[in-house]
């Protein structure tokens, strides 16, 4: 039976449940794919919320010694930049866009990726690499920066994430 809106019981005053833990999955290897996750993880720690980062597929580049400093803004297939595809495809374009963004971020006190991972790690945030991706790319622990806490299978990731909000980026 339908009820008229005004006949509904007034909403109960419920106590707001605060977020205590977040697990953030980083699957993209572009600058704009990685930063939001780092900002959210650090922001969680700043609020006293537990935070884990789980890097998978090309997101793993953020943890790779040989690639971390080479991460760039995607200038092709990124409509948010409002740049024609053919212009975005000109060699060096993504380097230029990355430099510009890096300067802007530095002025806002947002650290480069390496320093940001260090900040999150020192804040007590967990930094993990995805086991399947590590195997797929033929990597070993030596390929990663020292802030990496371990290589996890999906099962181990879910186990660690018990009680957490899982965020996929």
């Amino acid at each position, binding site marked *: 039976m339908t009820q008229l809106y005004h006949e509904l019981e007034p909403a109960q005053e419920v106590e707001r449940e605060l977020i205590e833990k977040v697990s953030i999955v980083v699957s993209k290897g572009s600058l704009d794919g990685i930063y939001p996750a780092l*900002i959210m993880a*650090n*922001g969680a*720690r*700043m*609020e*006293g919320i537990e935070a884990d980062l789980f890097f998978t597929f090309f997101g793993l580049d953020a943890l790779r010694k040989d690639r971390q400093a080479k991460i760039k803004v995607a200038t092709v297939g990124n409509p948010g930049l409002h740049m024609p595809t053919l212009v975005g495809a000109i060699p060096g374009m993504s380097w230029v866009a990355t430099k510009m963004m890096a300067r802007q971020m530095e002025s*806002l*006190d*947002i*650290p480069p990726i390496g320093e940001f991972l260090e*900040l999150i790690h*020192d*804040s*007590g945030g967990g930094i993990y690499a995805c086991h399947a991706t590590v195997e797929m790319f033929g990597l070993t622990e030596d390929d990663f920066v020292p802030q990496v806490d371990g290589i996890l299978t999906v099962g181990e990731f879910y186990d660690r994430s018990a009680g957490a909000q899982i965020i996929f980026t």
Partner: protein
Amino acid sequence: MAMTEVAGADVEVDAEGFLVYPEDWNRVLAEEIARENGIPELTPRHWQVVEFMRERYLETGTAPSIRSLGKESGVPIKELYQLFPKGPAKLAAKIGGIPKPRGCI
């Protein structure tokens, strides 16, 4: 805005318990706010962070980011989180009697 009695004095605080007027602040008040927020005693290392936050805010009008707190306060990030487990920037601002930091970093 609400008035609350802290350390025997009436001070105005916002909904989250941050002082509305930084000039209401004193060290006894700081100890009291710390106790209410789960820090039983302010050690010299706590004070170093709290004073750095407060001075920086009074000089520049904004509280420092966690990044500059770690770099410039003389207390590294790891220790900041040991001293203030529920968020160093937020708690040190509260104890230092300045508004809640608004930045995302």
